């Protein structure tokens, strides 16, 4: 920021600005280029099916009938369930690391949570198959009968299915959400906390105040996790069961958009079939770009609020405490 505000109009800085500017532009051009190619490559399917592609459920490569609703359903269901599972844990980690952990422990603990993000997803997939799937199967065998009778928990005890996929996704999402949420909490001005304590708030109340103050940014952190969950492919493919059905059951094998592309792309010899897979990819691209943009916007708004109000004592503090 300081660089641009300084406005040193020497030739070097202009040249430098041009250089980095074109590199930045190239990144955008690549994304736009990918989107254009995908529209071009999916036109057969867009023309033939129109909106019914996203409303129908039959996916039959033999008959050349393609309806992608089950994949959309599976993607959204598994991702939102993963968020539901991950958010409290991620927030807990963020609060602990920014507010409660002893100072000399913070750095190694932050490092360890962020290490989770570095594990390759195929390793998460294997861990899912060997650890989570038997766990889910055992869980299912011990599900009380009245619960198993509800549409949310019915089905044979396979272990493979939506819940296993959501659990894997939750673990994969936690480091992202937790680390951004921690940054957000760190960015809550210390004066806010001091003000809360000055008003006689307990530690718990002060943390609640900080969470409330950072709510926009925290929403952003959660949505960043959502963006990651929507596009995750291999780990989900390995544990979700790959069955294109629309079911409310957490135990039922289902299918996601990313998985069907990974599974069927190599053998899709027929043009319409290939176009249908590309159309799924196109929608996945649009959805993830939108979610990511929205989350960045929320995080950015939060950090702007912080820099715009350097004297938070003037703002109404009592709101959260």
């Amino acid at each position: 920021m300081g660089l641009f505000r300084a406005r040193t109009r020497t030739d070097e800085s202009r040249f430098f600005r041009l250089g980095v500017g074109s590199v930045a532009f190239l990144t955008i051009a690549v994304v736009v280029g990918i989107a254009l190619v995908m529209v071009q490559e999916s036109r057969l399917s867009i023309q033939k099916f129109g909106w019914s592609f996203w409303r129908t459920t039959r996916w039959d490569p033999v008959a050349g009938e393609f309806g992608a609703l089950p994949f959309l359903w599976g993607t959204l269901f598994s991702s939102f369930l993963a968020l539901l599972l991950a958010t409290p844990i991620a927030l807990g980690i963020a609060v602990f690391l920014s507010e409660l952990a002893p100072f000399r422990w913070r750095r190694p603990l932050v490092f360890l949570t962020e290490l989770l993000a570095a594990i390759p997803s195929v390793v998460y997939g294997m861990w899912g198959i060997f650890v989570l799937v038997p766990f889910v199967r055992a869980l299912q065998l011990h599900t009380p009968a009245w619960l198993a009778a509800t549409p949310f928990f019915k089905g044979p005890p396979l272990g493979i299915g939506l819940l296993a996929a959501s659990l894997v996704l939750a673990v994969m999402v936690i480091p992202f959400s937790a680390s951004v949420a921690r940054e957000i909490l760190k960015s809550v001005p210390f004066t806010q906390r001091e003000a809360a304590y000055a008003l006689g708030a307990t530690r718990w109340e002060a943390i609640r105040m900080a969470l409330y103050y950072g709510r926009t940014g925290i929403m952003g952190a959660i949505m960043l996790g959502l963006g990651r969950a929507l596009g995750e492919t291999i780990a989900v493919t390995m544990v979700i069961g790959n069955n294109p059905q629309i079911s409310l059951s957490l135990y039922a094998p289902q299918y996601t958009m990313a998985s069907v592309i990974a599974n069927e792309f190599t053998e899709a010899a027929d043009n319409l079939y290939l176009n249908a897979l590309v159309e799924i990819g196109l929608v996945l691209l649009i959805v993830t770009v939108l979610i990511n943009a929205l989350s960045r916007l929320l995080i950015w708004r939060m950090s702007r609020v912080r820099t715009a109000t350097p004297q938070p004592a003037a703002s109404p503090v009592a709101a959260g405490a």
Partner: protein
Amino acid sequence: MRIARFLLAATLLVAGTALPAFAANLQIDGAGATFPYPIYSKWFAEYNKLHPDIQINYQSIGSGGGIRQLTNQTVFFGASDGPMTPEQMLAAPGKIFHFPTVLGAVVPVYNLEIQDELKFSGETLANIVLGKITRWNDPALAKDNPGVALPDGEITFVHRSDGSGTSYIWCDYLSKISPEYKKTVGVATSVNWPVGLGGKGNEGVAGLVKQTPGSLGYVELIYALHNQIPYGSVKSLDGEFVKASVEAVTAAAGSATGKMPADFRVSITNAPGKGVYPISSFTWLLLYENPKDKQRSKIMVDFMKWALSEGQKFAPELGYAPLPKGVVDLELPALAKVKVK
């Protein structure tokens, strides 16, 4: 970001595989089915020992991808586990020949705590896949397995989630047995499965079967043999239950020799004859009749002659069944039709 990273990785990968080519004088590229990849790479390596100036590269990207690339003429030869459809043949810019290279088989694997080895008739397998037989103690299974105490439990069918020649062969067989199967599922590398779980690759299906009590799936014979996965025998057209083996698969091809069409695009599932394993299939190498590049064409024809004679001896050790002599005798004159000048 993710896509950008993928593109970078793909570029590096392509650059990496192209590099060894600089060492050889002539390079021929092919792409297609994953199923014959182990034997093809063995053949290309052995052939390179005999002709050090020739390097044949093979990308196992799947039958569909192989056919697509051959049609676009980005590779010199293709490979497929299922014969090309008439529409695919028409889409290609020239006439394409199919050459059977080796044979493979698909076997039913299961996870059931019983001592006896299970037997399956085609109807039973079709009805399990269709979701009409759902329990292990179904009368149809009991009829196939007299004297075996079948447990009362739900059958979980496990299929390939990725498009695969293995699925093609499995569906091709079941469609011949059951008209209903042909109508509702059909034959393709990816189909609309009525029931079951999807695993990615042979290892994915085998993994799910091993993990899920009461499951039944299908994998390639090589895979079951190499990993010591128990598999059941299947009822042949002649009514005997045959356990898949290299010999039983070659026997299936042998029984088809007499009725072999001139273009070799033939399914040999459910073939007649004694000791014939019914879920067997050729895998094909695809060549243009009149390729532009006659130098490479000449080399490919020479390679094919070698693969069909000398090369066949590498098949059994890799779990493939060698072609019967009758089929090779039919292929050599067909190979002579490929234009080399």
